[in-house]
């Protein structure tokens, strides 16, 4: 009964509901969507990526993850809406259809399943993973300070009780390692996009250093074009720039890792707030947020499709 057509995309849902809905999406689009388990979380929950593919093996691909920080609920909700959008627009949207003829899209809606469950059941403000830290009563690592990119540098904490604790070593968090393994084993990702919330930013590398990335000019141009599309829907204003220059120096971030791995089109979104709610964005804002984000995502994807390397 909980078919993909009756699912309420304008609501926040617990992990089990989202995982169950993924099966419905796959069932509704068997020739396009598959659900692949990429590993398990620290607490043993499966981690599923939705793969949108029309065939072929290890085609050039685009990676999108959402909700690596569990309390940023509009990110995961946007991931759900986006998955449905890709599936339902395939065959009718000319550019998306063209892209999926030659490229695959991987979408990890719940990048931090344990944290997401914890934010639903125990602490709505939980941001990190739920791993135990040796010698500390505080749990969890900031999974966006745990990547092997300037690991342990400025903008990450050595304190396990901090919300930006980088963890004991690069990729110590199984949730991070699972993504690293998939991306490295695949070897043909052309774009890596991470969705966060909030404060309306579109960022590109680097975060661990304030030096310009080699492709900074191009990434800036791609980002500005994407944000122009995003803003055209509801007038939401975004800022574009490198992580270090637009927010602050932050080491161990995912898109710095992906960029250094050779995935040129690496971006991170900070989705909208209404200026009043922060992480508690009302559910009636999910669809407007996801809809405007999709315009930017699609613009980036089209650019990646048109600029093979």
């Amino acid at each position, binding site marked *: 009964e909980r078919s993909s057509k009756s699912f309420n995309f304008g609501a926040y849902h617990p992990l089990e509901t989202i995982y169950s809905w993924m099966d419905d999406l796959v069932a509704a689009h068997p020739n396009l969507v598959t659900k692949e388990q990429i590993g398990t979380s620290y607490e043993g929950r499966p981690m599923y990526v939705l793969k949108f593919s029309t065939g072929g093996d290890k085609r050039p691909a685009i990676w999108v993850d959402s909700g690596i920080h569990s309390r940023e609920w509009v990110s995961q909700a946007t991931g759900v809406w986006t998955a449905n959008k890709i599936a339902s627009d395939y065959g009718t949207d000319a550019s998306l259809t063209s892209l999926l003829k030659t490229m695959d899209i991987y979408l990890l809606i719940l990048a931090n399943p344990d944290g997401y469950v914890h934010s639903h059941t125990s602490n709505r403000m939980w941001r990190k993973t739920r791993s135990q830290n040796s010698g500390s009563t505080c749990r969890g690592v900031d999974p966006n300070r745990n990547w092997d990119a300037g690991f342990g540098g400025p903008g990450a904490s050595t304190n396990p*009780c901090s919300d930006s604790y980088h963890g004991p070593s690069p990729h110590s968090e199984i949730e991070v390692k699972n993504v690293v393994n998939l991306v490295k084993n695949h070897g043909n990702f052309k774009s890596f996009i991470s969705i966060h919330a909030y*404060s309306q930013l579109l960022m590109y590398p680097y975060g661990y250093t304030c030096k310009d990335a080699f492709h900074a000019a191009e990434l800036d141009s791609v980002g500005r074009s994407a944000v122009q599309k995003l803003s055209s829907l509801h007038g939401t204003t975004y800022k574009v720039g490198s992580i270090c220059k637009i927010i602050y120096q932050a080491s161990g971030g995912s898109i710095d890792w992906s960029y250094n791995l050779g995935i040129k089109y690496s971006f991170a979104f900070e989705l909208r707030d209404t200026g*009043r709610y922060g992480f508690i964005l009302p559910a009636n804002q999910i669809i407007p947020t996801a809809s405007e984000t999709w315009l930017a995502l699609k613009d980036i994807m089209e650019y990646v499709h048109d600029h093979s390397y």
Partner: protein
Amino acid sequence: EKVFIGDQVIRVNVESEEQIRLLRALEQDTYWDLDFWLHPVNTEIPVDIRVPYSSLYAVKDYLRAHNIQFSVMISNLQELLDEEKAEMEENNMM
């Protein structure tokens, strides 16, 4: 389940480098158990701080003492969370 009764989220529209320095000092202080939703980095981006009820008086006093203008973005976090939870339960029923 952790509750946030009386917790407020305060927004500071930072006006100077000196204010950034003062807010960073506040961020380093673990005594008040503050949760910086947006960090003090530059004058372009506001700073949002979730302040536990028990630290409200002291934090506001600190800001006023240093002439840092602020507004209350969320006056009682738990009220918003209760609304969010009720909405989710309603959606789940549907």
